[in-house]
Structures are given as structure tokens and as C-alpha cells.
């Protein structure tokens, strides 16, 4: 009965002080958020506690710890944290332990003088708490934000402020090897889901005070932290401003992955080609930063975005720079060829077998003709059929549980392919073409570019099937025109080929030796164009003739 009365009284009181919303039931998300933002902390600890509990709906993981503090332990103190998001040892040693332990000491110290509550609060912040970072806040909104990000919050009776203490600690993946961008030589670590760890990985590569990070909070509900990284003095300030503007203009409820951000800030949303590079390699991001690019690190995903990028960036692997330049250049060249093959091989096959039988050497033509004898479909149907089944296999291979993945790929690739050929459903020449194309299309170190090429093959096959090589050329011309018109954060996509920037040709299809890489990309860096001393070619020391 008393309880009921008390609750009723509380409710009435709340009604009096905070007229709306009276109850969280039946109120929309945006109104609730607005309400929380409008609330400020009050002096009364009980009231603050009620406010927080109301905002969090008394969630089961909210943990409260009531303490008493000060002379004769008459000051009530409340410590809140979210269970599972804090390191309990840090919480004990940094927060609860000192408060409880120092209480007696305090009472002796302040025996001569009587400290006000706010002075005590300051004392608490500056002398007692041992946490690495302690923030003061007066708004409910900020307090809750600290709370849900794994801080412990301390409230003192009589002070309309709170202290947020850094005690984060939760289960997390370790830094591991990259899974999508493997390198034989080079650093073997990859970004993880924690933004702070990711910035650390960058800091450890670039130990410079001029590596700057800027935080943004994106997503009305998820409140995802997004950090942009750049090297001050190298990067064009206008570029940073552009990135800032594009990220802060995002108004969305949730960000789960950098892909969301990518789609919201990219230059050419309808283009089949990605205009933002995503990578999980810290060394790649560091190299991009040193070329005057900006990295966008999103909390919760190991994929970091890099802007601006050019077409060439997608045919570049970090390893190109770690192996000697001959190797790097040859590999680059192979990638360029593979890109072209992946785009045109099936369509060229269709065009040649349907329209241009005079194009191939006689024996090859006859061989293809022999294989196609008895195949019931026309070449274009056959090609589309095989390409689609390859896409099915690829997709199935990714989604399948690891345990049955190999079985399916054996059934799919080996048995199905072999059986289809021997049953005369498809010609073995086309199987070879499709397999070669599949291999070629995955040569791009960046998966998103591989997928673009994959998808572009289908319109190319249709063009080849209707218009022959003329159609293939039209398709290629259309792609080229499109590539020329796309920009990534103001940089033309085909730089340095179109527009031609001769000083950047050293790092395109050919990768010149390290001692020749004297300048940074002109299209990105204007202030610090020179990268290194130009006379660094290693040579044997000049010897005097010793007879």
C-alpha cells in the first residue's frame, strides 16, 4: 500500500516537473530522443536515478551501485554502468575502491574546513578518481551516451552534474591476418571491428603528431562513431572539408558497416564501378594517407574507406610496393590484362562463334565447331547459362557453412561441369572461357571491383550476341566514356591516364623503383609535392684503382 502510494506520488511529481511525455508508452522514437535531449540533470540524486532508469527503461544490464562518501559518510553517491561493457577490475580499482578507501582520509582533511558539495565534486574528479579519463557532463543525453558506450557514470547528491569515467572492456576479436587482402610479403595484420584499435594500428605505422583524427557521430539510433584520418599539411584542406561536409550531412537511423557510409557519400551512386576504396589493410591506408588521401574509419567494421581514389587504385595491391619493382610491374601488367579479359572474354567468344568465324585460325575455328556440334543451345544462351551457373556457385560458395563448402564446390565445379560437357549441354571451349574469365575477374585485389566486372560481363555478352564484335566495341566505348566522366571527391576517375598526368605514370601499370618515386600524386597533393631526395639510386661506392 505504501509502495503504491509512493509510486503514485512519484508519478505525480514527475508529471509536475516534466510535463511531457508522461509515459514512454505510445510515444514515437523521435519524440523520445527529443525529450531525452531536453532533460538536464538535477541536484537530487533520487530524481536523477529515476530519470536515467526511465530513459533506459530499467534495462536488465543497467547496474547501479549506491555508495556513501565524505565525512561521516553522509553524502550519497551513485555509480552506474552497463553490465558487460566495462572491465570490472578497472571499475573497482579506479572508481569504487578509491571512493570507499579515501572517505576516512577525507574526513580528516576537511575537518578544519567544510567543503561545499560542488567543491567535493571537483575534488572527486581531480583527486580521487583514478581513471584515465574523466568527463564532466550536465545533460542527461550526454550521460546516457557515455553510459551506453561503456563508461561508468558517477552521480553525487546535491550536484546537478555527473562524471563519466573510462572503464571500457568488452569481448572482442583480436587483431588478425587480413582475410580478403592477403599478402605474401608485408604486414600481416588487419583492421578489426573496434574503431579505437584501428586508429591505433594507423598510429603505430605513422608515428607523427600530424596524423589527425576527427570524430563524427552518425546514425540517430545507432550513434555510430565515424573517424576521419588524414595527415595535416599533406592533405588538401578543401578535401578534408568536403569529407566533413559529406559525413555530417548524413541523416540516417543506423550505420552498420562502412558500406552504408560509402553509399551515402559516393560521387557516382549509379556507376557499376566503386569510387571509394575499402580496405582492411592498415599499411594500405597509411600509404593512402601519405599520398594525401583521407581515410574514413567506421566503428564496428574492419573495412576502412579511402577517398579519393582512381581506377588504378583498384588494380593495386600493397604487395606491389614490397616486392622488387620488376615483380610489382609485371603483376600490375597482368592485372590490367586480366581486367580486360574478364570484361571481354565471354563476349568475344560469343561474337566470334556467332558472327566472325573468319577471325580465328582455321584449326581453332574447326575445333570450336566440333565441340559445338550437338550442343542444343545457341552460343549466347550457352554462355549466359554457364556464366549464371558460375555466379550461383560463387554465391553459394560464400554463403555455405564452412563444413559443406568444399563438397558443394566439388559437386558444382567438377562434377557438374564435367557432366555438362560430356552430356553435350555445353561445349568444353566455353567451359574453358568461363573458367578463365572467372579466374581473371578475381585478380583485382579489391573484391568490390571484381564484382563490378562480374556484373558488366552480362550486358557485354548480350551486346556481343546481338551486334557481334561491333557490340563489344560499343560496350567497351560506353564503359570508357563512363569511366572518363566519373569523379571521386573531385579527382577524375581515370587519373593519371585521362587527364594525363605524366608525373604519376610512374605508379600505374608500371611501378618504378622506390628510389625513383620522388613525387607524390600531383592530383592529390599540392603543398608537399616532393616525397624524397631524387638521388637515391643505390650504387657501389666509387673505387680507386688498387693494383
Amino acid at each position, binding site marked *: 500500500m505504501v509502495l503504491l502510494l509512493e509510486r503514485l506520488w512519484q508519478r505525480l511529481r514527475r508529471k509536475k516537473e516534466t510535463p511531457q511525455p508522461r509515459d514512454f508508452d505510445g510515444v514515437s522514437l523521435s519524440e523520445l530522443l527529443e525529450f531525452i535531449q531536453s532533460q538536464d540533470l538535477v541536484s537530487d540524486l533520487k530524481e536523477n536515478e529515476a530519470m536515467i532508469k526511465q530513459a533506459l527503461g530499467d534495462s536488465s544490464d543497467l547496474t547501479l551501485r549506491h555508495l556513501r562518501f565524505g565525512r561521516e559518510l553522509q553524502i550519497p553517491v551513485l555509480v552506474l554502468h552497463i553490465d558487460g561493457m566495462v572491465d570490472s577490475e578497472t571499475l573497482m580499482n579506479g572508481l569504487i575502491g578509491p571512493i570507499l578507501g579515501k572517505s576516512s582520509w577525507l574526513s580528516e582533511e576537511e575537518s578544519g574546513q567544510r567543503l561545499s558539495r560542488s567543491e567535493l565534486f571537483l575534488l572527486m574528479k581531480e583527486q580521487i578518481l583514478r581513471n584515465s579519463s574523466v568527463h564532466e557532463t550536465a545533460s542527461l543525453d550526454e550521460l546516457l551516451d557515455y553510459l551506453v558506450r561503456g563508461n561508468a557514470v558517477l552521480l553525487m547528491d546535491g550536484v546537478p552534474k555527473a562524471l563519466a569515467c573510462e572503464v571500457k572492456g568488452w569481448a572482442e576479436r583480436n587483431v588478425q591476418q587480413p582475410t580478403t587482402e592477403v599478402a605474401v610479403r608485408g604486414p600481416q595484420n588487419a583492421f578489426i571491428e573496434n574503431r579505437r584499435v584501428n586508429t591505433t594500428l594507423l598510429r603505430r605505422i605513422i608515428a607523427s603528431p600530424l596524423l589527425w583524427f576527427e570524430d563524427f557521430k552518425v546514425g540517430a539510433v545507432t550513434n555510430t562513431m565515424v573517424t576521419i584520418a588524414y595527415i595535416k599539411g599533406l592533405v588538401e584542406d578543401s578535401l578534408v572539408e568536403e569529407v566533413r561536409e559529406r559525413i555530417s550531412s548524413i541523416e540516417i537511423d543506423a550505420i552498420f558497416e562502412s558500406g552504408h557510409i560509402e553509399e551515402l557519400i559516393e560521387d557516382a551512386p549509379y556507376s557499376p564501378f566503386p569510387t571509394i576504396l575499402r580496405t582492411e589493410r592498415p599499411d594500405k591506408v597509411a600509404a593512402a594517407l601519405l599520398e594525401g588521401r583521407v581515410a574514413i574509419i567506421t566503428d564496428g567494421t574492419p573495412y576502412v574507406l579511402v577517398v579519393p581514389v582512381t581506377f588504378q587504385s583498384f588494380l593495386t595491391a600493397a604487395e606491389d610496393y614490397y616486392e622488387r619493382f620488376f615483380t610489382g610491374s609485371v603483376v600490375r601488367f597482368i592485372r590490367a590484362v586480366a581486367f580486360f579479359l574478364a570484361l571481354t572474354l565471354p563476349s568475344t567468344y560469343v561474337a566470334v562463334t*556467332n558472327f566472325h*568465324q573468319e577471325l580465328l585460325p582455321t584449326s581453332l575455328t*574447326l575445333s570450336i565447331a566440333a*565441340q559445338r*556440334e550437338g550442343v542444343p543451345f*545457341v*552460343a549466347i544462351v550457352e554462355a549466359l547459362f554457364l556464366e549464371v551457373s558460375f555466379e550461383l556457385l560463387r554465391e553459394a560458395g560464400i554463403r555455405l557453412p564452412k563444413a559443406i563448402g568444399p563438397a558443394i564446390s566439388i559437386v558444382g565445379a567438377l562434377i557438374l561441369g564435367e557432366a555438362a560437357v560430356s552430356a553435350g549441354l555445353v561445349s568444353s571451349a566455353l567451359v574453358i572461357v568461363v573458367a578463365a574469365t572467372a579466374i581473371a575477374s578475381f585478380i583485382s585485389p579489391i573484391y568490390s571491383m571484381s564484382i563490378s566486372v562480374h556484373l558488366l560481363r552480362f550486358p557485354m555478352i548480350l551486346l556481343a550476341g*546481338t551486334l557481334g564484335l561491333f557490340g563489344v566495341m560499343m560496350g567497351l566505348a560506353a564503359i570508357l566514356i563512363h569511366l572518363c566522366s566519373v569523379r571521386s571527391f573531385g579527382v577524375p576517375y581515370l587519373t593519371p591516364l585521362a587527364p594525363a598526368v605524366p608525373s604519376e605514370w610512374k605508379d600505374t601499370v608500371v611501378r618504378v623503383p622506390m628510389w625513383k618515386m620522388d613525387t607524390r600524386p600531383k592530383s592529390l597533393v599540392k603543398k608537399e609535392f616532393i616525397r624524397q631526395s631524387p638521388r637515391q639510386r643505390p650504387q657501389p661506392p666509387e673505387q680507386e684503382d688498387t693494383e
Partner: protein
Amino acid sequence: MTGNSRKVLVVMLIVISMLLGGCWSRRDVERLAFVLAVAVDKAQDPDKVQLTVELARPSALTATSQGGGSLESAVWRVSSTGYTVFDAIRNFASQVPRQLFWSHNRLIVFGEEIAREGLEDVLDAFFRDPEMRRSVKVIVCKGDTGANFLLVDVPLERVLSGGIQGIISSSVEKLSTMVDIGLNYFGRALSADGLEPIAVRGEIIDLPPDEDPRGSLERTKISKAPRITGAAVFKGTKLVGWLDKPEARGFNWIKGKIGGGVITVEKPNERNKFIAVEIVRTRSNIKTEIVGGKPKVTIKVECMGNFADRENVYVNPEGVAPTVLSIERQMAAVIRNEIEAAVKKAKEFGSDIFGFGEAFYRFHPKEWKRLREDWNDKGFRELQVEVEVKAMLRRSGLIELEVPLGK
């Protein structure tokens, strides 16, 4: 109309216009009958022409010889007649289930009879049809019909046309005692002023009965083989005669088309003992002048050779240098003889296969106007031809000139 729906309309127009075109003029590669060689002869009906084609059978051609090997013929030879070549080609449709495809054709073989009568009625289709390649070899079968030429076998190759092509290219490289003429040259020679056509000469030779080229596996009727030597000389579109091996090489010397070959000379001081010199590099040059109102041609030929082999041991007491000199002199004599023989034969036929007339047209256009009227029958026959040959013997290999055989 809003901008967006206009965009959609443009895309639709492009897609629809593409799809409406459909797969126009599409032909599946397996629905084609690949012509590898064609023979053109007179049909029994004197107004008609007979075409015989060698069609590839892709499945038999590419079948690997698993399990005993397939001895199935890789080609199918089929004939058709018509009033014109195009007519005859269309008439194949009543016998051949697939569309004839000509781009992979390698040979055109004319029977001697039709070649003697003139090819003006049958050549046009081969130039006019876009599918026909200008690189096909033009062969005249001496003493037989083209159809019969297509019936012989080159046992090493599964397809006759491939075999003939191989023989032609290896002959050019190793012998040069024949000519290598494609349809393009033939047509150019027909249309050019002061140049007469020439063609490859093919023959069907009988093999000795005990000589079985296929070994013991198939002791059947194969007793005929093709041979490519010499050349067929045309005057206009009519075949007028043949060049034999040395004359054909003489033609090649003049035109600078020696791909390689062997010059056999007698040993300097021994009768009936021979030395072979391999031709390594040649250069030829035709110079035209008008001397006293009469045309004159100077042919300059340079030839560089390597010592290839010789019969028996040879020791010249005078030393190496005089030996080399005397061999070089003999080489030059051989080359000169071949050139002069070729010119003599061509003059007999009254056919300027060397293009001397064309050279006059180029360098003496004014005089050519006067000369061209009766060039083949008078000007060319009375043409003064001077031959200058420079022969060099370069290398003898590491064995020098002597091998102490029999010692």
C-alpha cells in the same frame, strides 16, 4: 516530360533498337560447312562450270586418336555445277546440309583445261564475295582437272589443303623452285598494266606401287601424291605455258622472292662432283632505261650463300681463297642461267610475268604510252635484258672447307 522519364525513354530506345536488330546475320559456328579448298573445272555441259569443294568435318578433324585412332576421313569432297561460280556455290545447298563458309578457304585449284580456255568467267566471284580471302593460293593442276587434284592425299596431314599449304611454305623456304602466288597477286597482275599473272603449278604424280606412304596399316589405293614445282604462266586470264624448276627460280630471282634454296655447283676441278651452297640472303633490283628509243632492263642480283655440303674430299693446292672465288663464280653462273632461262621462256609465251612493263610505266611513263600498245607481243619479246649477278660465299661452318674423310 520530366527529365527522368526522358532518360528512361532514351535507355528504352537504345535497348529496343538493339533487341529489334536481334541476332541478325548470326550464324552458329557449328552450322557452317568450312570450305578448305575449291577446285574449278569445266563441267560436262560446256556452258557450265563445275566446283568441287573440300569441306572440313570438324568432329573427325579434331578427334584425338584415342583407342586405335580414327581413320575416318577428315574432309568431305563434293561437287556441284552451275552456269556461273556463284550459281554453282548456291547449288551446293541441295547436297550440303550446312551453309558454305569461305573465309577459311586456302586453295583455289584450276584444271588445266579451264585455265587454257580462260578464267575470266570464273574469277569474279572469288574477288567479289567478302567471305573470300585474297590470300588463298592459286594453283593450276597440270594435265588434270582440279577435282582430281583434290582427291590426292598428303598422308602426313589430315587435310589436303593443309598439306599443300605446308608444301608451298616449306618449298619457299627450302627450295624456291616454285612460285608462291596468292589470289591477291593474281588479281593485281590481271588488272595491272605491264604485268601478267602467274600461278602455282600443281601436279599429280604416281607413286611406285611398292611405296606405301601409310605404312602397313592401310595398304589400299593410295598411289597418287601431289607435287608443287615450277609455275603456270598466264597471258591475261589464259594459261599459256609452264615454267620448270630452274625457270621458276629464275622468276623468283628477278622478283626478289627467294626464300631460301640450294645452288649446286660442280667442284672447281673435278667433273661430276658437286658442292651445295645454301642461299642465305638475296637482293634484286630491276633498272629500266631507254637506250636509243628501245627499252632495256638491267637485273641486278646479289646472293649470299653458306657452304652446305659437298661430295667427297676436296683439296685444292692453290689454297682456300681461290677455291671460294671459283665457287662464287660458278654460283653466279648458275643464277644467271636460271634468270636467262626464265626470261627466254616468258618471251616465248609473250607474257611479261616479271612486270618489266610496269617498271617502265613507273619510271618512263611517257615512253610507256608508246610501248604499251603491243608490249607483250613485241616490246617484251624484243626487250634487251642484261643480268648482273654478284654471288658471295660466306661461311663454311667450323669444319672449314675440308674434312679429312677417309684418312
